[in-house]
C-alpha cells in the first residue's frame, strides 16, 4: 500500500512542532522503509511541512523559538534520509552553499540530498558561508558547479559578490531560492549561469548540462548606483533617525526597531537590483506579518513616510518609498473594508 503523503506531512508537522526529533526521524525512516521514494519524503513531507512552518510563523501562531526548533528537527530528518538512502555518485561534482549571512540552510540542505539521490557528488557547506572560505573550497576540490542558495532578497548584493567570485575562478553558478525572485529575474540580472525554483528543478537543470566554464559577459550588470552606495553606508544613521522621529511622533502602536531595519534592508536591495516590486512585495508581506502581531498597516505607512522625509536627497529612494506607502495603504484599506464587511454581517448588529 502506498502511504498517504499529505497525511504523513501533517503528522510530521505535528512532531516537529513539538521538537520531537526521535518521532520525526522515526516517521521519515518508516516512510522510506515502506517504499516511499526518498525524493518524495524530502520534497512532499519535509519541505511541504517546512513551508507550513513558515506560514505559521507569519501568522503569529508559532513563536520564532518554535519555528527554529522545528527547523532544527527537520535538519536532522533530512540528514537521516541522506544516511538511509545513498546511491553511489555517477555524475559530476556540485557544491551547495548559502550566501554569506544567509541562515536559512534547510532548503539548500534538501537540494544537496536531492542531488545526491540523482547521482551527483554533492557537498553541502552549510549556512552563511564566507566568500573566502567558499573560494578556497573551489580551488581545493574543483567542483563542476556551485549551487548557490539565497532565500532573502536582502542578501542579493552579497550573493552577487559570491556569484562573481565563483565565476572568476572558472566555476559556473546555479542560483536558487526565493531571494532570486519567483521567476529568477535577479539570478539572471546578477549573471548566474542558470536558475532553478525548486530542488527537483535544480536537479533537472543540472542534468540538462551546464557549460564547463562561465560564459564571458559583456560589461557589468546594471546594479547599485549612487543612492544605493549612500544608503548602504548610512543605513545605521538612517534607521536611528527614523526610529527617533517615530518616537517623537508618539506612534500609538508601533512595530519593533528591527522592523525599521528590515525596511531599510529591502529598500537597499530594491535599489541594488533597480526593481520597485522587490520593495512593494516586501511591504505587502510585512503588513500581513505585523497585522498578525496586532501592529496595524498604518504603522508601516507612517514609518515609510518618515523614511521618505528623511531621505530628501535621494529621489530614487523616495520614489520607491512612495510606492511602498501606496502598497501599505492598500493593505490598510483592504483591512478596513473587511472590518466594515464583518461588522455589517455581524448578527444583530445595529
Amino acid at each position, binding site marked *: 500500500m502506498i502511504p498517504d503523503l499529505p497525511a504523513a506531512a501533517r503528522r510530521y508537522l505535528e512532531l516537529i512542532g*513539538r*521538537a*520531537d*526529533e*526521535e518521532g520525526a526521524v522515526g516517521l521519515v525512516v518508516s516512510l522510506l522503509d515502506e517504499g516511499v521514494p526518498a525524493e518524495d519524503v524530502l520534497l512532499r513531507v519535509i519541505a511541504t511541512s517546512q513551508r507550513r512552518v513558515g506560514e505559521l510563523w507569519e501568522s503569529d501562531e508559532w513563536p*520564532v*523559538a*518554535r519555528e*527554529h*526548533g522545528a*527547523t*532544527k*528537527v527537520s535538519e536532522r530528518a533530512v540528514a537521516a534520509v541522506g544516511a538511509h538512502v545513498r546511491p553511489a555518485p555517477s555524475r*559530476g561534482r556540485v557544491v551547495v552553499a548559502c550566501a*554569506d*549571512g544567509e*541562515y536559512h540552510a534547510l532548503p539548500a540542505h534538501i537540494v544537496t540530498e536531492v542531488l545526491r539521490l540523482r547521482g551527483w557528488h554533492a557537498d553541502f557547506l552549510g*549556512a*552563511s558561508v*564566507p*566568500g*573566502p*572560505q567558499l573560494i*578556497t573550497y*573551489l*580551488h*581545493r*576540490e*574543483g567542483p*563542476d558547479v556551485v549551487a548557490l542558495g539565497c532565500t532573502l532578497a536582502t542578501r542579493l548584493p*552579497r550573493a552577487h559578490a559570491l556569484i562573481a567570485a565563483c565565476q*572568476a*575562478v*572558472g*566555476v559556473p553558478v546555479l542560483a536558487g531560492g526565493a531571494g532570486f525572485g519567483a521567476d529568477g529575474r535577479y539570478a539572471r540580472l546578477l549573471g548566474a549561469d542558470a536558475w532553478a525554483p525548486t530542488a527537483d528543478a535544480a536537479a533537472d537543470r543540472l542534468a540538462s*548540462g551546464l557549460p*564547463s*566554464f562561465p560564459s*564571458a559577459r559583456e560589461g557589468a550588470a546594471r546594479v547599485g548606483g549612487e543612492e544605493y552606495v549612500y544608503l548602504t553606508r548610512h*543605513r*545605521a*544613521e538612517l*534607521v*536611528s533617525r527614523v*526610529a527617533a522621529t517615530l518616537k517623537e511622533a508618539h506612534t500609538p502602536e508601533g512595530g519593533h*526597531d*528591527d522592523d*525599521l*531595519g528590515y525596511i531599510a534592508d529591502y529598500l537597499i536591495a530594491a535599489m541594488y537590483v533597480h526593481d520597485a516590486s522587490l520593495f512593494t512585495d516586501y511591504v505587502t508581506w510585512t503588513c500581513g506579518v505585523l497585522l498578525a502581531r496586532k501592529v496595524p498597516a498604518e504603522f508601516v505607512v507612517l514609518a515609510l513616510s518618515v523614511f521618505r522625509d528623511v531621505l530628501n536627497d535621494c529621489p530614487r529612494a523616495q520614489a520607491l518609498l512612495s510606492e511602498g506607502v501606496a502598497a501599505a495603504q492598500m493593505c490598510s484599506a483592504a483591512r478596513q473594508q473587511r472590518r466594515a464587511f464583518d461588522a455589517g454581517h455581524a448578527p444583530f448588529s445595529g
Partner: protein
Amino acid sequence: MKWATGSADPCHRAVSPGLMAALLEHSREGVVVCDADGVVTLANPAAVRLAPRLEPGLPLPAPLDSVLSAPEARVVTHDGRQIQVRAEELGEGRIAWYLTAETSRRTEFLLEAARRLAASLNPHRCARAAAELGTRFLCDAAVVFLPPASGRRIEWIRVVPGRSGPDEGAVPAAAAAEVPGLTDALAGLREDVAGRQDPGGTPDWLLPEGFGPVGHLLVLPLPGNSVSAGALVLARRAGRPSFDEDDQGMAYDLATRAGAAISAACLFRDQSTVNGILTGDLLPPDLPEIEGMRLAGRLRASQQAGAIGGDFYDVYLPESGPVERPPLVILGDVCGKGARAAVLAGQVRHSLRTLLLMESRPERLLELLNRSLLASPSPHSYVTLILAALRTAPGGHVQVDLAVAGHPPPLVLRRDGTVEEVAVRGSLLGALQKISLWPATVDLAPGETCLLYSDGITEAFGGPSGREMFGEERLRRALASCAVMPVDALVERLEQLSTDWLRGGQQDDRALLAVRAGRGASR
C-alpha cells in the same frame, strides 16, 4: 527577400531611397559599390571604419580590388587589419563588396586561453580547461596527463567534442609509455620542437571507442616550476589536414600557458594539503554524545578564510587510567587573533589533555596550566578559560563543576525561562604567578541549559545604529527566548542573532558551547 503583402510595387513602396540610405547607414556589415570603371560610388560607414582609405569618387583601393566575385569570402589585409571580403556582381558592370572584420583565430585563442587558464587553482580544472581549449581551437581530441601526485599512476583528462563531459582516468607509467613520446614529454623532454609524433603508434585506450583512426598527433610537455607539470596530447582524425606551422605555434602556446596554470595549481594544492593537516587539530572537535546530556557548540573565526582563531572549545571524555573523572568541557579565548592565536589555543587544549592524565580537580588543572603558560617562550600567552566537569545526578540532573579563569561567567537557562549568571570567577591565566579562583557548582534539572560563551559575542559592535555593543543583557534576553528549542537550535540561534547584530562589521572570534541536562527539548 520578403516584402509586406499588398505592396503593388515593392521596390518603390517598401524601400524608398531614404529608407535604403538609413539601412546602409546602420548596417554592421560594410557595403561598398563600384561602377563598371572600378570607381567607388557608395561606401557605408561600416565599410569606411574597416577600410579608412575608401573614398567615393576614387578607385577601389588595393587589395580589395583583387577580390573577385564569388560566393565564398576571402580574408585580405588592409592597413594591417584583417578583413573578410565577399564580392557580388549587381549587373550593368557594377560590383558590391561586403566587408566584415576578421578576428584572427589566434587572437581569439589567446583571449580565451587567458580567461580560462588564469581562473582556477585546481589542477583538474586547469587540465580540463587546457583540453577544452585544445579541442576548440586545434584538434579532435585532447588529453592532458598530470604528473603523479602520489603513487605511480598518472591521471589523465580527455575532452572529445560531442561527448557529454570530459573523461577521466589514471594509468600506470608503463601504459603511458605506449603513447609515442609521452614518457619524454612527461619528463619535460622534447625530441621535436613541434611535438609531432607517429599517429600509427597511438594505443587504443588513449581515445574513446569509435573515434576512428588518428591521422595526426602532437605530444607536448607542459613546462612547470622547473619540474614537469604534465603533458598535452592533441589528436586529429585521419583525413584531416595536418598541424600546420600556425597550429604548432598555438599548441606550443597552449602547452606553455597550461603548464604554468597547472603547476601553480599543484603548488596551491600541496600547500593547502599541508595547511589542512597543520590546522586540522586547531578546529573545534565534533561534540560527542554523552549519556544524560546534550552538547552543542559553535565557533566563528574572525579571519574567515582560515576558520581558525583564538577562541576554542574542547571536550575530554573519561579515559581508563589512574584518574577517575567525569566528562569535561572547556571554552576559552587566547589573546590575539588568527593563526598565531590558534596555535596557542591548540597548545592549551593539548596541555590540558596531558594534565588530565594525572589531575582531575578543576582548580588544580588551571593552576598547572597557568604555570605552563608562564613558562611559555612566546610573549603575551594570556588565556581566559572556563572549565566545566559534567556529572550526571539522579533524576536526569547534571551537576556542573565550574572553574573560571578571567572569562565571562556562564549563563544558566532555567526551565521557567529565567536566566541566571553563575557566581564564579577567577584570574586570567598566563599573567600572574599566583592565580585566585572562586569555583562553583550548578545543578541543571532536565531541560535546563548552561551556556559558555566568549566575549566576542557580548562585545560585538553593531545593531541598528552600528555602534552599539551587543552586551550581556541582550544575550540574556536572547537566551531566555530559546527555552523550548533543542540545544543545537539554541546555539545556532544565538550565533545568528550575534551575526545579524554585527551586520558584516568588524568581527572578533566568537564561541558558544551549551550543555543541556537530559535528552530532548525542555518543556
